[in-house]
C-alpha cells in the first residue's frame, strides 16, 4: 500500500545548520549531526535538503524526480518538454549502499518555464512551476517530483539518514545551509516519496511531531489548490507555509503567529498593536493554526526558520558559533559537529528562530 492512501504517524529526528556568510560547506557536517540521533529514527526514512548546491544553475529550477519505471519517465519528460526549456538533465549520481535497496530511477532536470507557456498561463514562474509539480505528482502514475527549488535540492530515501547521505554522495555537495531528517514511522511506508524533507519550490520542511489539527489544515489548504498526496504533516505544513508566505505575502514572523498562534490569554496581555495583529491573524487564518506537537525546520532561499508548537511538546535546541547557527532535536547533535558554542538556548513554544544570510532581503522572496 503506497503512502498516501493512509495516514502514517511518525516520530523523528531533525537537524539543520547554516553559515550566515553564505560560505558553502560540505554536507559532511550535517551527516555527522543527524547520525548522532540514530535511535530517534528506525531506518524507514531519511533525507536532506541542501541550499546553494547548484551555483552554476542558480537561475534554473532544479527538479529531482523519482520514477517507478521507464514508462513513467517517458510520460513525465514529455510533459516537462512541453512546459519547460530543459537546460540540463541527468541521473542524480549515487553510490551502492548495502542498506539502501530497490531504489527508483532518480533523475534531475534544470529547467526554466517556456516563455510562451508562461505567458499563456498568466502566472508568475513560481506558481507555474508549482502547478506543474502538482500535475505530475497527481496525474502521472509512477512519477514524483520531490524537489523543485532554485539552487537547492532534496535527497531522500527509505533508510537511515547517514546511509541515504552516502547513497546520494551528499558529502560531495557544498551548500551554505543543510537540513536533515531521520524518520520513525509506525508502519513501513516502503516508498521513497514519503520520506522527509518535503519540498515545494525553494521551501523545504523537516518535521518532528504529529499534529492533531492535520485534517482541518489539510481540508482548508486543499481549497487553495494544493493537492495533498502523502497524508503527512510535513506535506501540509509545507503547503501552509508556501500559501501564507508566497501567496498571501505574510512575513515569517507573521506566519509563526498564525501556525503557532499565541493563546488568547497571552494575546490579551500584549501591547495594543501586537494584540490587534495577533487577533487579526488568528481570525483570518484560523484554519492554518496547527495544534498538537510539532518542531519544524523550514529551509528557504537565503535562510532557515525553526519553530516549536505553542506548548513545546517536541524538543528543539539552537546553538550559535560565529557565523554558524545550528538547530536540532538534541543538543548532542549540535555538540557533535561544534563542541565549543558561543550560545545554546531552547526556543520557547511558538517562538520562531529565523536565521538569514547577512545582507539577504528580509524574507528571501
Amino acid at each position, binding site marked *: 500500500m503506497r503512502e498516501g492512501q493512509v*495516514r502514517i*504517524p*511518525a*516520530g523523528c529526528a531533525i537537524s539543520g545548520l547554516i553559515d550566515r556568510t553564505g560560505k558553502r560547506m560540505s554536507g559532511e557536517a550535517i551527516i555527522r549531526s543527524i547520525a548522532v540521533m540514530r535511535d530517534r529514527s528506525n531506518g524507514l526514512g531519511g533525507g536532506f535538503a541542501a541550499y546553494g548546491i547548484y551555483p552554476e544553475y542558480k537561475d534554473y529550477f532544479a527538479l529531482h524526480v523519482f520514477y517507478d519505471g521507464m514508462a513513467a519517465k517517458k510520460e513525465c519528460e514529455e510533459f516537462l518538454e512541453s512546459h519547460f526549456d530543459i537546460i540540463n538533465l541527468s541521473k542524480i549520481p549515487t553510490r551502492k549502499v548495502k542498506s539502501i535497496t530497490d531504489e527508483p530511477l532518480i533523475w534531475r532536470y534544470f529547467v526554466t518555464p517556456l516563455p510562451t507557456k508562461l505567458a499563456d498561463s498568466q502566472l508568475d514562474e513560481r506558481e507555474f512551476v508549482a502547478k506543474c509539480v502538482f500535475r505530475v505528482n497527481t496525474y502521472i502514475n509512477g512519477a514524483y517530483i520531490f524537489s523543485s527549488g532554485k539552487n537547492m535540492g532534496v535527497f531522500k530515501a527509505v533508510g537511515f539518514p547517514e546511509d541515504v547521505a552516502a547513497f546520494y554522495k551528499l558529502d560531495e555537495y557544498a551548500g551554505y545551509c543543510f537540513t536533515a531528517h531521520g524518520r520513525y514511522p*509506525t508502519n513501513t511506508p516502503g516508498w521513497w516519496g514519503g520520506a522527509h524533507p518535503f519540498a515545494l519550490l525553494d521551501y523545504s520542511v523537516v518535521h518532528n*511531531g*504529529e*499534529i*492533531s*489539527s*492535520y*485534517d*482541518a*489544515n489539510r*481540508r*482548508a489548504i*486543499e*481549497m*487553495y489548490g494544493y493537492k495533498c498526496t502523502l497524508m503527512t504533516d510535513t506535506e501540509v505544513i509545507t503547503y501552509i507555509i508556501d500559501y501564507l508566505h508566497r501567496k*498571501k*505575502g*505574510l512575513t515569517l514572523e*507573521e506566519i509563526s503567529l498564525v501556525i503557532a*498562534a499565541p*493563546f*488568547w*490569554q497571552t494575546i490579551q496581555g500584549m501591547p495594543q*498593536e501586537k494584540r*490587534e*495583529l495577533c487577533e*487579526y*491573524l*488568528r*481570525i*483570518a*487564518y*484560523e*484554519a492554518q*493554526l*496547527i*495544534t*498538537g*506537537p510539532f518542531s519544524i525546520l523550514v529551509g528557504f532561499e537565503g535562510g532557515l526558520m525553526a519553530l516549536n508548537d*505553542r*506548548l513545546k*511538546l517536541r524538543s528543539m535546541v539552537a546553538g550559535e558559533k560565529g557565523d554558524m547557527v545550528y538547530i536540532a532535536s538534541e543538543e548532542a547533535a549540535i555538540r557533535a559537529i561544534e563542541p565549543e558554542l558561543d550560545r545554546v538556548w531552547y526556543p520557547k513554544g511558538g517562538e520562531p528562530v529565523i536565521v538569514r544570510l547577512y545582507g539577504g532581503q528580509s524574507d528571501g522572496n
Partner: protein
Amino acid sequence: MFDFTEVNPMAINFLYPNYEVERNYDRCISCRACERQCANEVHEYLPDQNKMVCDDSKCVNCQRCVSICPTRALKIVKTNNTYKENANWTGKAINEVYRQAGSGGVLLSSMGNPENYPVYFDKILLNASQVTNPSIDPLREPMETKVFLGAKPKAIERDARGRIVNNLPPHLSLSMPVMFSAMSFGSISYNAHESLARAAEELGIMYNTGEGGLHEDFYRYGKNTIVQVASGRFGVHPDYLNSGAAIEIKMGQGAKPGIGGHLPGAKIIGDVSRTRMIPEGTDAISPAPHHDIYSIEDLRQLVYSLKEATEYKKPVIVKIAAVHNVSAIASGIARSGADIIAIDGFRGGTGAAPTRIRDHVGIPIELALASVDRRLREEGIRDNVSLVVGGSIRSSADIVKAVALGADCVYIATSALLALGCHLCGSCHTGKCNWGIATQNPELVKRLNPNLGYKRLVNLLTAWKHEIKEMMGGMGINSIESLKGNRLMLRGVGLNEKELEILGIKYAGE
C-alpha cells in the same frame, strides 16, 4: 377557525388518553400542590375524603405535578390500553386518523420530529490521542473554545509602514461555539426571553430574538442578541436592526421547511402585539415564502439592504432548513454577501407546525452539514461564510461532532427549553405551558423566574464547555479552530458506505 383540539362531534370517544396519572396514596399527603400547579386541571382535592383524585384524559404528561410533588407520590405512565396495532398501523397512525376523522382539520404539533429516522450523531465516534501524540490536559494547559463567525478577508493589505491593515468584515465573537436559536417573543414568554438574554450575556454568546421582534426591555442585551427578520417582518424597524450584534434572515425552519409560521391571535396580547407591531388578537402569519424573495438574487438584495440599514457594521446570517438541495442553496447564499449560514435540521423544534410536515419534510442536519461543508470547499468559497447548525443538538458531544464535520458553531433551542424546565410534552400550541415557557397567560408566565432560568442555562452551557474542553484535550487539540472540519477525528459505526461518504468519515477500525 375550527378548534383542532376539539376531537369528535360524535358521542363515541375514539381517543383513549395516552398517559395515566398514577398516585401512590401511601405517599400522597394531600398538599394540593399538584392541583394548584396543573393548568390542564387534571388533579382535584375531595375535601370530604381528604383525598386527591385525577382526570387522565386532560393530562399532556408535562411532568409539572410529578416534579413538584414534595413526597414523590406521583408518576405518569403510558397507558397500557393499546389498539390492535401492527408494524404498519402504529398507535400513532391510528390515533391520527381518529383525530382527523373527528376534527376534519390539519393536525398540529410542537417540538421536533419524533420519528425514529437515524440520528447520525449517535452513529459517529470521536478520536483520542495516544502514544504517537499526547492528549492535552485542560486542567493544566489553556484550552480555547473561542470562535468567530463571519467571512474571512480575501487578501492582506498593508499600510505605509508595512503593518497589516485590519480588513476583517464584521463578525460575531463567542466564548464557545453555541448560540440560543430563534424562539419568538410570543411563542415563548417574556421571562423565557429574559432568561435566554441574561444567560447569553453571562456566557459571552448570543441569543436569537426569533421573528417576534425585540421587547424594549431587552435592548440592553443588544451585544449578545441576534435580531431575526422573517417573512412577516414582525417588529422590524431601524432601531431593531441596529440593536443586535447580527441580523438573521429567516428563510426556513427545520421543523417546517417550505411553510410559514402561525402564532394564534390568543397569544398576540399586550407586549407581544406592541413588540410585533400588529393589532391585539390578530393571528400572526409569517407567509412562505418571503413575498419579496422568489430567487437567490432577491435574497442578495435583502442582505445588502439590511447591511445598508446598519452601515455594514453587522454580520448578516441567512437561516435555511436542511432540505434536499441544501448544498446548492448554501453555495448560492455564500455568494450573496451573507456572512453566516444557519442550517436547521429536520429534528429542529417548533412551537407549532403541521404534524405531517414536521414528521416527513427535511433531512438530517449531520448529512446536510457534511455536504454543505464539502460543497463550499469544492467551490473554494468556504471562507466566505461561517456555518451554524441546529435541529437538533442535544449534548456537548453533538457539538464536538458537528464542529468536526465542519460547523463553526451550533444553535440550540430545545436543549435550552429543557434547561428552563420544558418536558417536551408537545402542547406549546395550546398556550397552556405549565412551565411558564410557551405561554402568554400571566399566571403561567410567572412560573419561570428568570433569576433561576438564566442560571440553569448558564449551568448547562458551562458544563458543556468543560466537556468540550475535555474531548478536545483528549484529541490533542487546544484551540477549537483545529477541530473545525477535522473529519479524521470522527469514525462511523452502523453506517453504510454512502452515509460514510456523505459524512466524509471513515468507518470505525479503518
